[in-house]
């Protein structure tokens, strides 16, 4: 019942915050968010699961009961954690607490509603990473949209209305596509009687679907695989479905950006891993080359787009597209280091991009501009915040002893030696070239903003950031370095959960 407790605390906290007075809402929400953070860290130490949640693994903190009987099909409340989901849950809870603290400065209207929505998102994200029945999972998956829509739409920048509706429509349409595909699959799998993901996965691996409405079994599996891939690809996002991301990021308030880049994007890759790459090993093999091509294009094209930006936040936003491309490449490599590295990179990128958005946000709070061309020599006035920005940028570039290095190294190592992906060396080399562009645009941006003589086109008096703005960044930096020095902290449990996937057709 630990997961239910985690969800309940967060949801009740969201309600309490929603009706609390604006004056105390920020502090209150931070206090409340420490409870799920502490709970999830305790769960991290007490984790006793093994194997993969969908493939007969030993779930930690599992609980299950029947909910609704729909004809022959049972809908159950089924939640549990394995080595893939636990790090993501911890990432969610920790990042939410830090994001809340980082919003004390920028959020100055309707505070109680803002923090209430942030906690509500947190609850749903926890749900996404713990739910193992499709039905329950989908509820959490979609319920994330409403609060994020409002966070962008109410507290966002000048083009917030456009960005909010674009975000909502893109991701919702994608969800509907994925949803329709999966339901069709369940009905196509003759003898499945529930929407529980483990049962569906087992049926898929032991024979696959019988066919549905004129489609044969393997054709149905291919159609569903492609539809679900497209559905998740929008959420990740990969090129060419990425256009909602920079809009949403640029307009969103800093804490929403932190959650969006840090956790929401991982929903897409997590779902890809759980659905496409666990249930459809044959289709993964058949579609490996197009998927790898999409991954490499996302890496290179995302990085090129970042290179062309002059808005710091847009640079960080586009670099997310690039980083998510690495994750897809790791997944499609289908090796222990590839898939494990991709999962590690999800956590690592969540931390690093969260850090970067916070740093950009802190600079913006002081300068009220994010344009690279408007500033130079920021290191003079805001040494601490800028120092962290530089550290985050190096994390992004994959500096050894930071988590980004291990994630990307594992992905490249796994992808280079992949036996399943043809031309894997070529794809990997191309993707590696992305690192060069990443280093290029980040260093270029830093050189112009951070160094040189101090100059700023703004009327605001720029001073040092308050402690509660920089404290969360230090915490993040600490975690990033800790994971860089000792990746086995989470990599062991990840590989433990990844290995069973690869036994079904991967390159173990």
């Amino acid at each position, binding site marked *: 019942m630990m997961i239910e407790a985690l969800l309940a605390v967060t949801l009740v906290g969201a309600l309490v915050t929603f009706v609390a007075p604006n004056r105390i809402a920020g502090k209150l929400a931070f206090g409340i968010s420490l409870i799920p953070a502490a709970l999830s860290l305790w769960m991290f130490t007490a984790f006793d699961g093994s194997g993969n949640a969908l493939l007969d693994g030993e779930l930690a903190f599992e609980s299950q009961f029947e909910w609704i009987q729909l*004809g022959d099909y049972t809908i159950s409340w089924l939640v549990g954690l394995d080595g893939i989901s636990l790090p993501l849950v911890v990432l969610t809870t920790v990042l939410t607490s830090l994001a809340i603290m980082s919003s004390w400065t920028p959020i100055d209207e309707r505070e109680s509603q803002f923090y209430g929505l942030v906690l509500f998102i947190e609850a749903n994200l926890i749900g996404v990473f713990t739910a193992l029945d499709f039905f329950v999972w989908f509820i959490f998956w979609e319920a994330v949209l409403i609060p994020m829509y*409002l966070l962008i739409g109410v507290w966002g920048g000048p083009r917030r209305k456009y960005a909010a509706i674009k975000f909502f429509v893109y991701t919702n349409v994608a969800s509907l596509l994925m949803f329709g595909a999966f339901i069709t699959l369940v009905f196509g799998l003759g003898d499945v009687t529930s929407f529980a993901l483990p049962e569906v996965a087992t049926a898929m691996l032991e024979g696959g679907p019988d066919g549905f409405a004129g489609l044969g079994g393997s054709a149905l599996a291919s159609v569903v695989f492609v539809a679900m891939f497209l559905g998740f690809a929008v959420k990740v996002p990969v090129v060419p479905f990425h256009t909602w991301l920079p809009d949403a990021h640029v307009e969103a308030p800093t804490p929403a950006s932190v959650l969006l880049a840090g956790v929401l994007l991982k929903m897409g890759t997590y779902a890809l891993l759980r659905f496409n790459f666990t249930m459809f090993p044959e289709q993964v093999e058949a579609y490996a080359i197009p998927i790898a091509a999409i991954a490499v294009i996302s890496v290179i094209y995302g990085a090129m787009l970042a290179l062309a930006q002059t808005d710091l936040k847009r640079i960080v936003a586009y670099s997310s597209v690039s980083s998510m491309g690495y994750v897809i490449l790791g997944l499609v490599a289908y090796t222990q280091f590839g898939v494990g590295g991709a999962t590690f990179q999800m956590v690592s990128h969540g931390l690093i991009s969260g850090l970067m958005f916070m740093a950009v946000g802190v600079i913006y709070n002081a300068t009220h501009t994010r344009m690279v061309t408007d500033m130079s020599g920021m290191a003079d006035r805001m040494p601490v915040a800028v120092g962290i920005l530089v550290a985050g940028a190096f994390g992004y570039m994959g500096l050894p002893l930071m988590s980004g290095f291990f994630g990307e190294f594992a992905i490249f190592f796994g992808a280079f030696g992949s036996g399943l992906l043809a031309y894997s060396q070529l794809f990997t080399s191309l993707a590696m070239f992305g690192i060069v562009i990443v280093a290029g645009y980040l260093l270029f941006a830093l050189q112009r903003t951070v160094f040189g003589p101090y100059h700023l086109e703004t009327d605001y008096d720029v001073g040092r950031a308050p402690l509660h703005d920089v404290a969360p960044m230090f915490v993040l930096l600490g975690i990033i370095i800790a994971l860089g020095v000792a990746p086995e902290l989470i990599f062991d449990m990840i590989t433990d959960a990844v290995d069973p996937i690869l036994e079904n057709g991967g390159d173990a």
Partner: protein
Amino acid sequence: MAVFELPDWAALAPALILVATALALFVIDSINPHTKNRSLLAGTTAVGALAALGVAVWFMVAGVGTPTAAGGRGVVELFGGQLVVDQMALFFMTVVSVVTALVAVASYDYMGDHAYQAEYYSLMMLAATGMATMAAANSLVTIFIALELASLPSYALVSILKDNRGSVEGGLKYFLIGALSSAIFVYGISLVYGATGHLQLEAIADNLQGAGEYGGLLGLGILMLIGGFAFKTASVPFHFWAPDAYEGTPAPVAAFLSSASKAAGFVIAFRVFTTAFPLEPTTAVIGVDWTLAFIILAIVTMTLGNFAAATQDNVKRMLAYSSIGHAGYALIGLAGLSADGGEIVMGAAMMHLLVYGFMNTGAFLFVALAEYWGVGRTFEDYNGLSNQAPVACFALGIFMFSLAGIPPLGGFWSKYFLFTGAIEAATANSAMLIVAAALVVNSAISLYYYARLVKAVWIEDPVSGRDTLSQPTGLYAAIIFAAVLTVVALPVFGPIADAALEAATVAIS
């Protein structure tokens, strides 16, 4: 064992309570004509509707209307099978009662300074009685009588603002189209009677074979019956009264008509087509599978409703077209029937009508609140209302996202089941795949205009110079209650789904 056995007619208690309340309102009005004691009038109405609701729920829980084989007390047939109280009847009596109660509470404020208080509430209760009777009607004659009993007070309700052009115009349109469709419906009844020689629904089913040589006649009769249902449920091709009638009428009446009246229209459609015209024998006689008609109507209705709703600037008209769209969703319940299945899809349609009863009533009541405040009618007029009335706007957000089918709200569940049911039905009839695809596409479109209203109240800057907004107790109570029901549907959806699916299974078998 019960201490004493209730007589059979007691099974009609929900409808009887509603009619008794209507009579009580007449008595109040005759003792004290033109009374404006709105606490007494609205209170009596609400208590009556809640009592009917309580009894209907109690009956369902106690197993009245559940077949004895399933451990219940048996389906109650009255007056030689003219009326029947089964799970489906009780389910829809619940829907009608809960909507009536919500609307009555909201009318306390909305109709506060209206001249014809007692008339308003008694007309509403009479219409509710008609709708509850429609739920139990089991013969074409009782169906027609119940339909008229529900319709005639509704015409008067729509035009209750006698001095308001829109209200009178809407009422007249509603009446004319209602009269036309009633005529078509009665003509259809006569054709069915001519072909089969019976009016009672089971008897029609038993005599379908005898109608062999009149197959075309019977088919025409069935088509005309569909016309009657289409009017009552605001479906294509008799949908066009809805936007005008809803726009002109007081918003609580629009809430009442678009939720309760639509549900009542659907229950007779469900009953007639599952009981009187079982798929296989009917197809053998008339040569066409009647689900085809509903597949076409469902797709056209939902698409037309959603596209039209997306182009509206007036909030009430948007809701009116959205209610046409939702009629299209509910029609899937009939479109997805097949010779040996369809419980899921029909049960899902029933669930959808129940949930729709909360969320749509709530949405119209928010419009009632806006009319009460006098803020205007268009999306722009609603801009930034959340600054002044966050609680009501929060509830509006719940209604809108629920109508759009976003989890975890009630509307998602029923839509999800409809979709699941449609996909399941596609195993027997692959045309249902198109219906399922249309459902998904329309859900995506509907998100646009529902989110637009949320955007107006929450995201847009407030209209400058707006007066402070009052907080009318009754309207707020009704809106919050509807919102709570929409949200609470999440944990309690198990029993709701069970009730609807059992009812659908019994009706189909």
